């Protein structure tokens, strides 16, 4: 397999070139590459297979004071960034939040539908629905549409009579109860920062900073995540939005530009 290096070709004729030079054209300089099948593609397939498909980063975790929920705000269609200001944290009701990963329409519609069902439950039973119940409602709906192409990777976070609750629900029908989750293509990067910095007894400020930092690091490494890192807190009195910072600005806040010593200065060549 030969690489095409015609872009590196210089104007001057190539010394020792084959006799085709007679025509006035020079052959494109190139060199042999190892003779394997699909040299450029071998790692691409492995990475594509493994990288989570949903282009976003969302995370949520339970700690002593409640639940912290955070997400980026970028929407991408392949390599095109279609929006930098998508609301990926959906307010189901004043004490429950849902995160969006996967198809935007699917997530928005089904979260709105879940909000309706939760309100109906309140009216029928004269009490608020638990996070367990709400997540089970959503999981059952998604399970019944399994295989029909819905793409939803969501976390339901809320505060009910039993305290803070966090469930991960996806369009394959899976539902997991847990203390920390991250969903989306940037989730492996976010997990690293989140797992390392997590302590159950953090204050609200510390937890918010951890969530913000984890989202920032994921947006730094993952092309499909970016925009604004929103952080929400769910406590006994319901949810509250804590911050929404542009990740570009966060970058310079965490890694400010230091004036570095100049080794050598470029000097103007004196007119000779």
């Amino acid at each position, binding site marked *: 397999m030969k690489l095409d290096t015609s872009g590196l070709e210089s104007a001057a004729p190539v010394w020792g070139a084959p006799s085709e030079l007679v025509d006035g054209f020079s052959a494109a300089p190139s060199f042999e590459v190892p003779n394997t099948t699909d040299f450029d593609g071998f790692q691409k397939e492995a990475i594509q*297979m*493994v990288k*989570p498909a949903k282009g976003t980063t969302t995370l949520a975790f*339970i700690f002593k004071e409640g639940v912290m929920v955070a997400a980026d705000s970028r929407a991408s269609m392949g390599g095109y960034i279609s929006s930098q200001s998508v609301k990926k944290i959906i307010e189901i009701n004043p004490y429950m939040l849902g995160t969006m990963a996967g198809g935007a329409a699917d997530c928005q519609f089904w979260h709105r539908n879940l909000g309706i069902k939760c309100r109906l439950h309140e009216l029928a039973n004269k009490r608020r629905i638990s996070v367990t119940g709400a997540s089970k409602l959503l*999981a*059952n709906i*998604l*399970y019944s549409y*399994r*295989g029909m192409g819905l793409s939803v990777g969501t976390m339901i976070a809320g505060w009910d009579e039993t*305290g*803070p609750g966090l469930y*991960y629900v*996806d369009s*394959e*029908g*899976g*539902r*997991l109860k*847990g*203390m920390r*989750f991250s969903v989306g293509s940037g*989730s*492996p990067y976010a*997990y690293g920062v989140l*797992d390392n910095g*997590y*302590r*159950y007894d953090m204050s609200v400020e510390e937890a918010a900073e951890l969530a913000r930092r984890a989202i920032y690091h994921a947006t730094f490494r993952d092309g499909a995540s970016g925009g604004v890192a929103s952080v929400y807190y769910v406590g006994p009195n319901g949810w509250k939005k804590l911050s929404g910072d542009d990740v570009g600005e966060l970058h310079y806040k965490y890694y400010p530009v230091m004036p570095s010593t100049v080794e050598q200065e470029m000097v103007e060549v004196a007119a000779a």
Partner: protein
Amino acid sequence: MECVFGLVGNDFAVVVADTSAVHSILVHKSNEDKIMILDSHKLIAASGEPGDRVQFTEYIQKNVALYQFRNGIPLTTAAAANFTRGELATALRKNPYSVNILLAGYDKETGPSLYYIDYIATLHKVDKGAFGYGSYFSLSMMDRHYHSGMTVEEAIDLVDKCIMEIRSRLVVAPPNFVIKIVDKDGAREYAWRESVKDAAVASA
């Protein structure tokens, strides 16, 4: 990657399952309990697609409970196993469930039993069985060391041998396992074998 195995001993049956909830390369959770207590004297250890596993086993559990309410007596293990297989078989050519099940139970009249039910509705009553990549290691371990009428200590020792073998030889070995046992006193959790503790599994 989901390892489930079990065996029948002297007046008891034991089932073991890994506890990882995995999505591609990400481990979402490493303390997910995949062995459901079907009723007072039955355990159902399931592995397979995440949605199917929970939905199908809950469906079986609720129907078993319904039978008991309607008829005043609980189902035998054999009856529950045949019911489960029947449900899998009926769904098989419409919208199949991708779940493999080991159903362990204790009946007063017939003692302990273990049923192997796979996703295409195969049903076998067995002394020992296993599903998943772990089965490549646990089945031969059990074949070598199993004998009928093992005591609880001998059986748990064999279980630990299998877990150690899976941990050392399987490339994506799950770190944690849960062991549940069923005997004349009922179905209950016996122990966890954890090599990675999920950080801050607090009382909340």
